Every structure is written in C-alpha cells, then in structure tokens.
C-alpha cells in the first residue's frame, strides 16, 4: 500500500479515461468491447486466486451462469435492467452455496480444483443436453448445444426500445470495468481485503486469531462469481447469443492462462493478460499456417517456465530496476506464495 487511496483512484481514472479515448483508434470498438469483458472476467479470477488463494478451475461456470441468467431473464422480462441484476446475483448465490459446501468442508488445493472442475462439467453437460422442447424456463428455451439467440439486449433502463449497442455499448462496458476495478481496489484496501490476503497466506493462523475463514472465503468466492456473472451478462449482450461453450473447460482454462500470463497478485495483471491473449487469438484467426491451439499452449508453458510471475509484475519490476526505485517488493513474494497456497 504505497500510494494513498485518493492517488490510486485518480491515477486509475486518468489512465482509464485516456485508454477509453485512445484505444478505439487502434482496435475496432466491437473487438475492444469483448477484450474489456474478458478483462473483467480475468479480474474476477485474479481477485479470488491472486488475493484469496482460491484456485478455481471453474470460473467459466459463473461466467456462463451470468450469461444464461441474463438471456433467460431478458426473454421473459423483455427489458434488460432486472436481467442484468439477476445475472450478477444468481452466480453470486450459486457460488456462495458451492463455496460454503467446499470451504466448510475444509477442502483446499487440488480437491478444491477437482470440485470446481466437476461442477463446471456438470453445468456444461446439463446445459448441453437441454435441446429438447421440455427444457423451458418461462418463455425461454434453453436450447442445448445451440444455445439461446434472440434475446432482448441492453437497453436504457426503463425504455426497452432504446437499445445500447455499438460504440455506446463499448463505453458502457469500459465504464463498468473501471467501476469494478475501483471496487476491487477499495475491497483490497479494506479490512476485508487485508484479511483475505492474510487467509491466503495462512489459513490456520487466521482461524486461530478468531476469523471465520470458511465464511470469509465463501464471501470472497461469491464476489468473484458476481464479477464473472456481470462479465457473462455483458458478453451475452455483446455476442447476442449464449452457448454452452461459455461453461466449457476450455473457457475456464483460458481464464487461468490469462491470470498467469498477466500476473497473479496484481489487479492489473489478469486484465492485461485477458485482453492481450484474447486479442492475440483474434489476430491468429486471420492466418492459417500455425495451429492456434499450439501457440496458446506454448505461451502458457513458456510463461510457467520462464516468467512465472507474469507480465505485469515483471514489467513493473523492470521499470523500478531501471528507474532506481529498487525497493524490495513484498508483492512479488506474496504472489509466488499465492500460487501454492
């Protein structure tokens, strides 16, 4: 906590305003929008993994749940405000239940990984097998493998015909990300965030201090899910279709890769990792010589081997080394431990 909170907020606001203004000149807003959404999704895992030490193999489950909740609610309601709220709440409640089940059962590490992975698989398999006409929620067919197209997309609250799409939608998503980022910043500076980091570092000690570790992890897990759910709803609006692929293990894998490449234990790393890799994937789709899966895989292996701290810590370390502020940064150590906690 080197900078004061006000400074931190100001810097965030100025930098993001500049980025929101400059980036559309470099990348089309439509693509930018999805990069922002992925950034938010990366941040959701970055929060619970990097600061809470909870490695979730199924972050995509909450992303998908948010997207599906939005789509189903939007079809039934015909207006986007309530569905947006539901898309945040439903994954959060689901995560709270799942988290309580896991954390009060004192599951950690690999076991946590297995459970989150399995729950994601169950959701994926369930949604994937709902093609039949009997799977209906209100007016919405769940649609199985083909997903749900044609739902009401984001509108100005209260006016279902005033759609927000195209460039305005880009601004909505960008502002949403900035708000979420600031909320995460605030959370991490608050007692809750500091206690969460304490729990990441040593659960037993925090328990012996009198903190209800399971409850706190559950809450943090639910917050992460809420952010992922919001990203899911924004994604649904962006793509105008939701498919079971959102729940897939591949999607979960990508989120984890974003965090690793961007840098764990930082707020910015997962966002940068997500946007950067998603853009790389988008660029790779325009060539056909090298298989894209191969490239993504190689990136992951090389990062784990040679840059396990990720891009953002490495670059800021380099920056500090260059400009002489070579203070020992506890963040770096903190980060490494988080991965094994």
């Amino acid at each position, binding site marked *: 906590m080197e900078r004061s909170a006000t400074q931190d907020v100001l810097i965030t606001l100025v930098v993001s305003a500049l980025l929101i203004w400059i980036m559309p000149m470099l990348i089309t807003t439509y693509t930018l929008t999805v990069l922002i959404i992925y950034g938010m999704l990366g941040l959701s895992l970055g929060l619970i993994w990097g600061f809470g030490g909870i490695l979730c193999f199924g972050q995509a489950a909450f992303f998908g749940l948010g997207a599906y909740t939005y789509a189903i609610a939007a079809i039934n309601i015909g207006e986007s405000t309530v569905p947006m709220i539901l898309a945040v709440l439903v994954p959060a409640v689901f995560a709270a239940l799942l988290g309580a089940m896991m954390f009060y059962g004192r599951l950690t590490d690999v076991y946590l990984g*297995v459970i989150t*992975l*399995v*729950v994601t698989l*169950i959701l994926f398999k369930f949604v994937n097998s709902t093609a039949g006409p009997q799977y209906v929620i209100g007016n919405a067919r769940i649609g199985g493998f083909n997903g749900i197209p044609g739902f009401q997309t984001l509108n100005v609250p209260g006016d279902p015909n005033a759609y927000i799409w195209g460039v305005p939608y880009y601004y909505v998503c960008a502002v949403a990300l900035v708000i979420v980022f600031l909320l995460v910043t605030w959370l991490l500076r608050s007692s809750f965030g500091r206690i969460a980091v304490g729990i990441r570092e040593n659960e037993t000690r925090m328990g012996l201090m009198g903190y209800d570790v399971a409850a706190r992890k559950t809450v943090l897990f639910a917050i992460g899910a809420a952010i992922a759910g919001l990203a899911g709803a924004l994604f649904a609006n962006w793509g105008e279709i939701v498919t079971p692929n959102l729940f897939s293990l591949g999607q979960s894998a990508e989120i984890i890769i974003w965090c690793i490449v961007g840098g764990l234990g930082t707020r910015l790393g997962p966002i940068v990792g997500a946007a950067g890799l998603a853009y790389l994937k988008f660029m790779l789709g325009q060539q056909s010589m090298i*298989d894209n*899966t191969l490239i993504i895989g*190689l990136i*992951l292996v090389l990062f784990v081997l040679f840059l396990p701290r990720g891009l953002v810590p490495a670059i800021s370390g380099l920056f500090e080394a260059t400009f002489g502020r070579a203070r020992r940064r506890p963040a770096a150590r903190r980060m490494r431990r988080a991965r094994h906690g």
Partner: protein
Amino acid sequence: MDLSFVILVEMLYAVASLVLISAGLAIVFGMMKVINLAHGEFMMMGGYATITAVGLGVNVFVAMLVIAPLVVGLIGLIVERLVIRHLYGRLVDTMLATWGLSLVFIGLATMIFGNTTTGISTPIPGFAVGGYQINGYNFFIIVVSIVLVIAMYAILRGTRAGLIARGTMQRSDMAAALGYSPDRIYMATFFCGSALSGLAGAVLAPLVGLVPTSGGAYIAEAFITVIAGGPSLIAGLVSSATAFGLVNQIFTFAISPVIGEVALLVAAVVLLRAMPQGITGRFFKDKM
C-alpha cells in the same frame, strides 16, 4: 438372465476402463505429486501411435501393447526433461505447464494428422450371450486392466524398484536417503506413467473415433478418479474406479448415458465433500 449378464459385463467394463484411463495419472501423482493435465493427450497420442503403426502393417496387438506405450513413454521422457523437472514441488505450476503442453500436443496432432476422425476397427469379434450380442473387445479391456493392476501390485511388492517407489511415495526424500538419485526416479516414474497413458489410449482406440481433441474427454474422469482415490496408489485407484464405474453404469442403464456421466460427477462431489482426503485417506490407509 442373459440381460443381467450383459449388464454385468458392461459394469465391469466401465470399472476396467476407468482403471485403465486413470492408471498413468495415478502413478505420476502418487509418486511425484504432479498432476499431469496432458494425460488425456498422452492417451490421444497412444491412439494415434497405434493407428499409425497398424497403418504401417504392424499387428494390432503389438501396436497397442508395445509400440504405443513405448512411443508415448518416450514423449513423456522428453517432456519430463524439458519441462516438468524444472517445476518439481510446485503443484499448481506443473498443472498449468502440463495444461499448456496438452494444448501444444493437440496443436501438433492437428497439424500432423488433421482434425478428421480416424480409428481402427476392433480386432475381436462380438459374440452372442443368449439372445444378446456383446462386444468381445470389452473382455479384452477387462483383462488388460486386471493384468495391469496385478502387475503394478507385483512390482511394488516384489521388486527393488517397487520398494524404492513405495519409499518415495511416503517420503519424497527417502530415495535420496537410500542413495538413489531422485532425478532418476522421477524420470523413470514419468516414463512409466506416460507409457501407461499411451497404453490406455491405444487399447481404447478401437472403440472410438479418434481426433486430436479426444484426450479432453478422459482427463476430467481420470483426474477425478485419482484424486477421489486418495493417497494409496492401487487401493485408491481400484476403489474409486469401482465406485464411479458402478454409479455411472447404474444410472446409464436406468436413465441415459448423460445422466450416467452427471451421476458420476455428482458422486465425485459428494465423495470428496465427505472424505476430503479421498477414499484411501479414510479407508485402507495402510494399503498401497
């Protein structure tokens, strides 16, 4: 009567194939505390090795039981030397690195073999049990799994290598204390684990259509089986494969294959919640 026999065989087959699918992963995890998420791709490569060898005129059983394990074992050895050995003791990092490797293998296989479904036909004909036809190859898989489990038991119990392995499983510094290089042991373990993955992929290849992404279908089940099995290698493997195989097949026959798979997954959640250290974390503690 005929029907119940057929169902019994299907259940045994389900258990056997889970044992087969999980064995390679279990060995690597048990010995090295490394979760090899490229395990499914090792199986996929075992399948391709078999199909390629058969295409070159090799006898199908030789291809499955000899060539595929060797080829995949060698690939595993290379992977261990290049990547895994730098990451020992870092559980999460090895998971991530092997995940990356799995993507690399999928990419490579796609570039070499293309994404078209390939496969070989089953080398054993079906036969009739009363009024029912039954897949003869199921028996082959059951036999291979049984032989595999017995062989693992015999090696761990009866050989010097097995002794060292058991020591290493209990305490990773044991081998060093006994004067064996842990590096060598890990190398050998990873070779064996990969070879078993290759064997599993090869033996299952004639039953499925193979594509470079086929491995993904196995890794989740193998991962779940191994973790739910807990710390004891053989007892854990057999007990959790039995539990999951039976749950899966009961629901498959009663309702549908999808429900069968979901039931397996739900069983895994319930089981891990009830026994956070896996089955052998609670029962059969002193077994292998």
